[in-house]
């Protein structure tokens, strides 16, 4: 996930009005996966094979990035939530107070736009529905 700092800033600004939840899913660039990104200070992570392993990696991720302290949950090893939201490798959503999808970011990494999420939050809080911006 990118732009942890910007998302943290959104959290700080809107947390009283909007619940923020980091949903930790399968690795985008596992060392032993299809598209490893080796070198350059990026984290070395093998794709977890148990829930305990995924929870451990999530713990380290949260601790070592600007997401530290934010509410977070970990997807099950069936990747059910990731599949339901087509969320891999990363993706931003806003669920409205009515339980409906208010904003659905385009798939990451290129669609992962904190600025678009911010606009959606503002629109939701102002009472209007918001659509994902066209790529």
């Amino acid at each position, binding site marked *: 996930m990118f732009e942890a700092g910007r998302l943290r800033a959104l959290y700080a600004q809107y947390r009283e009005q909007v619940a923020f939840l980091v949903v930790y899913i399968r690795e985008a660039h596992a060392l032993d996966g299809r598209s490893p990104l080796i070198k350059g200070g990026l984290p070395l992570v093998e794709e977890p094979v148990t829930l305990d392993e995924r929870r451990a990696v999530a713990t380290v991720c949260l601790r070592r990035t600007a997401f530290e302290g934010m*509410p977070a949950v970990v997807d099950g090893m069936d990747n059910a939530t990731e599949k339901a939201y087509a969320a891999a490798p990363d993706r931003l959503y806003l669920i409205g107070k009515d339980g409906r999808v208010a904003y659905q970011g385009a798939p990451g990494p290129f669609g992962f736009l904190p600025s678009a*999420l911010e606009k959606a939050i503002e629109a939701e809080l102002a009472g209007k529905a918001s659509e994902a911006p066209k790529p």
Partner: protein
Amino acid sequence: MRSPLRAVPARALSMPLLGMLFLTLLSSCVCGKPPSCCRMATSAAPEAALPPGPYARDARQSAWSYLAAKYDADGDERITAEEHGRGEAAFQHLDSDKNGAITADDLGPGPVHGLMARMIFMHWLQDDEDPRVLTRAEFERGLAVVDADGSGAFTSRELARHMEAHEASVPGMPVPPPGMDPFLSLELLADEDRDHAVSTQEALAYFDAHAQDGAWSLRRRRRPPPGKGRPEPAAAVGETAPDFTLHSPDGKRAVTLSSFRGKQPVALLFGSYT
């Protein structure tokens, strides 16, 4: 903290400190923003507090060093499937050269780096009518522009400046995500003499190695057949969000999405560490 520090083989601890210094030089972010913008924020968390798991504790450890320490039980610099023991798919991914064992040679730049490198060149070195074709001549002209100080080579900084100053010229093509160092991909693939700069010669060698009829061209992406390609989300905008109950990383708190209905909107940030 409950968990004791996982026993680390002496071999991992003997990783050359020089190697760590070297990787420090490679890992600086060129976006110029404070470290919290980048994936790897600095953290003072003591090592003993980190839970055991399938990740390198030292973010600057090399991939081979990590894998060898963990799996190369007989120390012969080759990790067999038996030594690996983490599943066929994972082993096959790691054994890039398909010689039946994971070795240091398997851990070079991957397909993502090639894609990044080509995207960078296609985007930022175009200067004529057809944005879908990058000719060698365009490429050479583009390199001269990137190489602002005329040194005959360009560095991470020069490339970043060029990318900031110029719009990507291929409409509809994705751009490298913010915070990721695009130069790294070029460096991994083209910087033959390892001087952290890509010279005109090195860049042209890379171009020629991947050119057909002296040019690079973008193929129009065909729609994948039904059933293949990117899966669709279960709910579109305006539809009820799929419910879930998931637990916090420490396993202590359960969160059910539908519990927020009628109370608050929920921003969901899906992603992972890598």
